[in-house]
């Protein structure tokens, strides 16, 4: 019989043990009788010799090795009985713990999905991302996207990596479903195999298709396949017009396949991109490179090999590649700056969980103190101390595990609404769901909190002074327990203070930020990207007239006041950072200051209603052939010219990043013709801390011809309307439609609102957490004071009998509560100060905690806490001395 069988045959084992011992006693007794003892005496002697049968049985059970399991089952049964006897307590404790573990599990699910889970590709730990790295760094840093020729060389020479390159593209697909703008990527033929993706339908590119001369082929996404081809397998082999070229569809990606966290609808061979700039080693459109380590190759070996290739290329192409190397790093999900916020929120919910635990712990402790006599009795009857501790812990662990189970249910139902609530799009949102990690985490925190809440009562299990405890009856409270209770209340209040102050700080910040002037009038402005027809873009001479025509047509739409083109829109994602010089030559060009450059048409100032401070804005004379002009904002004016009048002055734009020319040496001189107000480009919150704040505008009409096509792909139309901006979308689409597609439609009001979305979201969450914390703390204060007061009823009875007035008694209880509350606030203020620093570090535009923040929150807390202590105080003041004394 093995251990488990023995456990299941427990009853049988018990019977056999009983039988064995009885046999022994009877044999012994009959032996003694045979020697002449009288039967009663013989039986007595036999029992005496064996020792107490129950003790012997206990020792036998111990020897069996299933003892701990037996005990556990017994403890669980006992715990269930105790909880069932006290349903009120059980429900409060379970709900508190369920709430605590539930919210923590939700936050952990998000952290797990967004930050911890590996990338959804085959063997993601063997994937690396490659970048170019220069020895010296300039104002943009020293890490660069790959040049396509560099990639081709690395790919050819590397023995340790299988590489793939890709870059974002996008354009209009036309055909039966009407013109539609879709996102795409251009990729080398290896990308799917590097990521370990097999296409469910059709095939991937062949290496020979990755060249200019070969037939255009495309792989489409599962989504596009459903949308445009209704999921028909016959889509393979049909042709598709994308970005003005006709492609043959050769494959479909699996549903949910994403590259770098982006949904992509069309995949075309990178090698078929006709743009000559792609073949440059400098002034090139960067491409992204990822690679898979060959089996058995370490990252270090791959890096060494890349360094060798880099040195060889530097010798071969000294002009572009001197001091330029290639580095490989493990491929990580791109989640931006979300990580810090997620950890912050996980920290905040942990505080809530901690408060919940403390609450349940103090409830359990109160119960343990009233059960002290019971426990002492059991020790007197032979229970070991360890056994009692284990039993207490079993009870609290059971409570915590059931609570945790409820918490997981809560998390399972709460996670989708939470993700939906997230401002903007949560990166990797599709990865956020309950999985074994979350389960493990939830079980771990449940058990952890079980032990945490059970520890205090368990350690109170009596070990000595039994007689005193037994004699004292139920009413003596050891000072120890009162101190522990106070410690619980103090920590609860302190944690609540931290969360309340954090919420108040966020609230104040949000309030201040909402009243900040963004630098433009954002009501009634519509922003929409416009994809020009590929035919127009193909002929550079046609581009500007086509835009002019489009703007004129848009102006005719009823409700439209003015229209302008703009490439980078304030508060929207995307910007163009350009270095500028304040002299024709710069000593250290790589350290030149940077500004945000925006290419616009003359009406832009009208549309955005940005104030003109000095000089003029652009007009139709600012075109190619005339003086190159820019308009700067007051930040740049101060930065570049100080107190001097900037109007009429010159700036120089280094040609390496100039939109006015495409050379690679020297700088284009531009004349400053006007100064406008600063626009909070980086959002209401983020602009003050942004690294690059200075701005200048330049006319689209002066952009050099080779860049015009690329610029046109980036252009958005900004429309000032007399009516609600979204109302003009349809008429506008009709007017501009045809072979041009409108996409990415937003209002400036949305952009301004979104720029505070994160702060608003954090405020909402912290508000909820703080509210929960306050509520839990009040329940805790109430519970502890009610308990402590009930223990003092006889004392209070004596006081009243001796002449104390109800007000005195009330004050006595309130004072006790107030002491704990104030101590908690003291500890909490320190914690809040630390938390405030963390918030300031993590949240854009966060104002430091001011005295007034504390002045607002702390009275709220004191009032709530006093209210919670008022109920027991009142009850105490109404104690009837006769009843109280009779309790003795």
């Amino acid at each position: 019989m093995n251990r488990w069988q023995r456990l299941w045959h427990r009853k049988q084992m018990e019977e056999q043990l009983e039988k064995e011992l009885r046999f022994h006693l009877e044999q012994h007794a009959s032996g003694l009788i045979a020697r002449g003892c009288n039967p009663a005496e013989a039986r007595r002697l036999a029992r005496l010799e064996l020792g107490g049968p129950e003790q012997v049985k206990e020792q036998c059970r111990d020897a069996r090795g299933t003892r701990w399991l037996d005990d556990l089952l017994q403890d669980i049964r006992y715990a269930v009985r105790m909880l069932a006897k006290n349903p009120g307590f059980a429900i409060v404790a379970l709900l508190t713990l369920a709430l605590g573990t539930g919210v923590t599990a939700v936050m952990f699910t998000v952290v797990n999905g967004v930050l911890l889970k590996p990338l959804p590709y085959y063997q993601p730990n063997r994937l690396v991302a490659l970048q170019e790295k220069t020895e010296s760094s300039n104002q943009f840093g020293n890490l660069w996207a790959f040049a396509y020729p560099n990639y081709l060389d690395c790919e050819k020479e590397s023995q340790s990596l299988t590489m793939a390159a890709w870059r974002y593209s996008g354009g209009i697909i036309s055909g039966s479903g009407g013109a539609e703008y879709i996102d795409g990527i251009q990729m080398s033929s290896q990308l799917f195999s590097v990521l370990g993706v097999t296409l469910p339908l059709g095939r991937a590119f062949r290496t020979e298709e990755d060249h200019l001369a070969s037939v255009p082929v495309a792989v489409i996404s599962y989504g596009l396949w459903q949308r445009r081809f209704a999921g028909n397998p016959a889509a393979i082999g049909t042709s598709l017009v994308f970005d003005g070229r006709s492609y043959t569809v050769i494959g479909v990606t699996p549903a949910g396949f994403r590259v770098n966290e982006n949904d992509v609808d069309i995949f075309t061979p990178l090698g078929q991109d006709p743009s000559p700039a792609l073949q440059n080693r400098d002034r090139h459109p960067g491409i992204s490179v990822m690679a898979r380590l060959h089996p058995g190759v370490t990252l270090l070996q791959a890096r060494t090999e890349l360094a060798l290739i880099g040195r060889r290329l530097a010798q071969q192409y000294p002009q572009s590649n001197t001091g330029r190397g290639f580095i490989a790093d493990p491929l990580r999900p791109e989640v931006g700056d979300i990580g810090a916020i997620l950890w912050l929120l996980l920290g905040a919910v942990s505080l809530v969980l901690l408060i919940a635990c403390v609450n349940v712990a103090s409830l359990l402790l109160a119960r343990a103190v009233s059960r002290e006599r019971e426990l002492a009795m059991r020790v007197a009857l032979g229970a070991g101390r360890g056994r009692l501790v284990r039993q207490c812990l079993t009870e609290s662990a059971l409570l915590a595990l059931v609570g945790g189970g409820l918490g997981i249910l809560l998390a399972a139902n709460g996670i989708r609404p939470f993700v939906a609530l997230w401002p903007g799009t949560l990166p990797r949102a599709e990865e956020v769901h309950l999985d074994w990690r979350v389960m493990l985490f939830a079980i771990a925190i449940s058990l952890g909190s079980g032990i945490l809440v059970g520890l205090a009562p368990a350690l109170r299990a009596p070990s000595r002074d039994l007689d005193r405890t037994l004699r004292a009856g139920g009413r003596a409270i050891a000072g120890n327990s009162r101190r522990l209770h106070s410690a619980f209340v103090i920590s609860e209040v302190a944690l609540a203070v931290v969360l309340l102050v954090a919420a108040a700080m966020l609230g104040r910040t949000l309030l201040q930020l909402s009243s900040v002037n963004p630098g433009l009038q954002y009501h009634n402005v519509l922003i929409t990207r416009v994809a020009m027809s590929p035919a127009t873009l193909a002929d550079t001479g046609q581009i500007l007239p086509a835009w002019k025509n489009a703007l004129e047509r848009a102006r005719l739409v009823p409700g439209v006041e003015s229209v302008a083109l703009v490439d980078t829109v304030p508060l929207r994602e995307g910007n163009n950072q350009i270095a500028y010089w304040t002299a024709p030559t710069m000593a250290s060009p790589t350290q030149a200051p940077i500004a945000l450059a925006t290419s616009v048409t003359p009406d832009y100032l009208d549309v955005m209603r940005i104030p003109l401070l000095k000089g003029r804005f652009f007009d139709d004379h600012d075109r190619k052939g005339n003086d190159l002009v820019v308009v700067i904002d007051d930040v740049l004016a101060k930065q570049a010219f100080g107190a001097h009048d900037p109007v009429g002055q010159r700036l120089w734009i280094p040609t390496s990043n100039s939109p006015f020319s495409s050379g690679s040496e020297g700088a284009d001189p531009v004349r400053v013709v006007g100064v406008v107000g600063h626009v909070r480009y980086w959002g209401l919150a983020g602009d003050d801390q942004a690294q690059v704040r200075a701005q200048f505008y330049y006319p689209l009409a002066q952009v050099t011809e080779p860049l015009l096509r690329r610029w046109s792909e980036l252009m958005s139309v900004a429309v000032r309307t007399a009516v609600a901006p979204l109302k003009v979308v349809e008429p506008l689409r009709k007017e501009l439609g045809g072979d041009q597609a409108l996409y990415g439609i937003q209002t400036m009001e949305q952009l301004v609102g979104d720029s505070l979305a994160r702060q608003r979201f954090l405020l909402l969450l912290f508000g909820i957490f703080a509210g929960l914390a306050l509520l839990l703390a009040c329940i805790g204060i109430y519970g502890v004071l009610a308990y402590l007061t009930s223990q003092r009823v006889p004392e209070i009875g004596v006081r009243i009998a001796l002449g104390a007035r109800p007000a005195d008694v009330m004050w006595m209880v309130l004072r006790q509560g107030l002491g704990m509350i104030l101590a908690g606030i003291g500890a909490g203020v320190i914690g809040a100060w630390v938390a405030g620093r963390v918030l300031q570090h993590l949240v854009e535009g966060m104002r430091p905690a001011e005295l007034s923040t504390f002045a607002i929150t702390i009275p709220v807390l004191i009032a709530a806490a006093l209210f919670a202590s008022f109920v027991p105080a009142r009850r105490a003041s109404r104690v009837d001395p006769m009843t109280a004394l009779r309790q003795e």
Partner: protein
Amino acid sequence: MHFYTLFDRYVEERGVTITEKSDLPQGTLDLLILKVVALGSVHGYAIAQRLQQVSRDVVQVPQGSLYPALHRLENRGLLAADWNETETGREAKFYRLTRKGRAQLDAEAASWKRLAEAVGLILRMAPEGAE
């Protein structure tokens, strides 16, 4: 049997027997039980009896610890047990040695013998310098 007295910590008297008895050194009980059971399948009471008889009442067999020891040895797989009828027709739990138990007995007996001889040697040692 003189080496038992070496481990004598206290001498306990109990009402019924007046003979001076020694407590068993730690771990010896298991060895003795194994030895008794090795002679043939036997029940708990008989083990107690035999131990007492063979040791001529010198060794105090703590009956209270006999059964836990039996259960422990069974649990460790050194003993196996069956329910059989005694000569008097009563049902009793009979213990027998398993193969593992025999190996254990041999090992422990050998080590006990070595220890006893060493202790004996030391006790027989003459005081230094005095011949």
